[in-house]
């Protein structure tokens, strides 16, 4: 699923009247290719759609403004991820910045009268527990277990020491296990 309209919108934002350069086209292609991935990553951290969309928008706006210095995707991708994730963490941890508190992302689903499928019940509990983690713990879990970054790469993205990231991951896992009623590691 791609979103070339976002790239077009960002180009309009930059008030760029110059002809499209190869770098412009590369960044536009990156945005079109990665928009959904970034939105999902931000959403796992923010836990509400409008904040996630804002975080991604800000990350991509910065990428567009600095496109001249971002010549290859190998640099562009972790850089944009870093901006988006940090913005998402910032929104997730600052109550003043939140206009919408999405309760459905922090609670489980209502159990139907006929009972809930055990697998669904576990995910319902996991969903509620994950939503209650601090934003920085959600971020490292999302980056490491969803986006597939290594611990060292995750540490670089959230600008924290590797040991701090390991601790956050361990605490998050312990808390999730605890809420699922499982023995901690």
């Amino acid at each position: 699923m791609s979103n070339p309209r976002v790239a077009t919108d960002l180009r309009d934002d930059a008030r760029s009247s110059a002809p499209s350069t190869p770098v412009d086209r590369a960044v536009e292609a990156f945005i079109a290719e990665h928009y959904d991935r970034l939105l999902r990553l931000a959403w796992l951290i923010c836990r509400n759609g409008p904040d996630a969309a804002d975080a991604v928008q800000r990350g991509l706006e910065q990428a567009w403004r600095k496109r001249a210095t971002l010549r290859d995707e190998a640099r562009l991708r972790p850089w944009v991820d870093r901006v988006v994730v940090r913005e998402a963490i910032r929104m997730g941890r600052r109550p003043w910045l939140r206009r919408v508190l999405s309760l459905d992302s922090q609670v489980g689903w209502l159990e139907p009268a006929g009972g809930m499928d055990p697998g669904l019940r576990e995910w319902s509990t996991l969903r509620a527990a994950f939503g209650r983690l601090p934003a920085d713990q959600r971020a490292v879990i999302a980056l490491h277990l969803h986006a597939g970054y290594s611990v060292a790469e995750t540490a670089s993205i959230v600008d924290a020491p590797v040991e701090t990231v390991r601790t956050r991951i361990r605490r998050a896992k312990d808390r999730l296990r605890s809420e699922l009623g499982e023995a901690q590691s």
Partner: protein
Amino acid sequence: MSDHRVVPASMPNDAFEARVARYLDWEAAQLGGARTGDEIAASIATRPIERRWGRNPMLVWAAVVMALIVVVAAAIAMAGRGPNQLVTAPSNDPSVALSAPPLTDAPPTATPDPNCSPLEGEIPYLANVGTLPVSVPVPATSSGQWLGARDHFFLGRGSCDPASGPSPFFDGALVAHIYADSCHWKSSEIEVPTAFDAAEELAKQTGHPKATSVETHLGPFRATRLDIAIPATASIATCDDGQLRLWGDKQLVPGVPVQIYVAEIDGTTLIITANYIETETTPADLEEIDAIIASVRIEI
């Protein structure tokens, strides 16, 4: 549904991690369920300007006003210089001209708030709460820069602006009215002629868990302390203007506990509050808050 993973290098270390990873993949995929990516893109493209610029329309206007002040100040400053001073000498260093901007995610250079000063050295922070001059020594901390507002009492670590999330921060007010219901505050304002009345009504205030009163001191003055906190997950959307208010425009924010110190100073009711983001506050931070409250001085 496309694969959202970026770097396949990291594999789950155990079965539990694998379960969490499966859940996260599923959860992330739900985002596209009700709204397609194109719909989301369209919503961003048509988002109102205040939504794209920031969280609060008031902040947008504040930023516009601040930008105008900076432009006027810069124009005044440049008008006071000679023409030669406006010309920048060309650099002989070729790297200056050729180097690209640093690859950094630092935000654009922040406009300094002329009403907000960093606190350093031995000079205590001094500002008025209403007509009362209140001072506190500069917090001795290595955990962050403290800043103080000049035109009113506001001391915060990291910022003078509560909207940008300083934690902890202190503010104060001379209070003559309290809301009996912090949720439906528009229709519940009551008069509190004395500090005793203010503390008693705050203890009875509804809209949040009841606060317990404790007799203590605010600097050298006797005071009543009340601690109020509501969970970060609490919904206050149905409250007046979507806000919980304690008195005046003082808000109670979910996830931000507030310590309230009520004291009678020279016949008026002074309230100083200490506020902090619960998930970011360490025991050392709480000790520092206590130390700051104990060091408050009020000039009467």
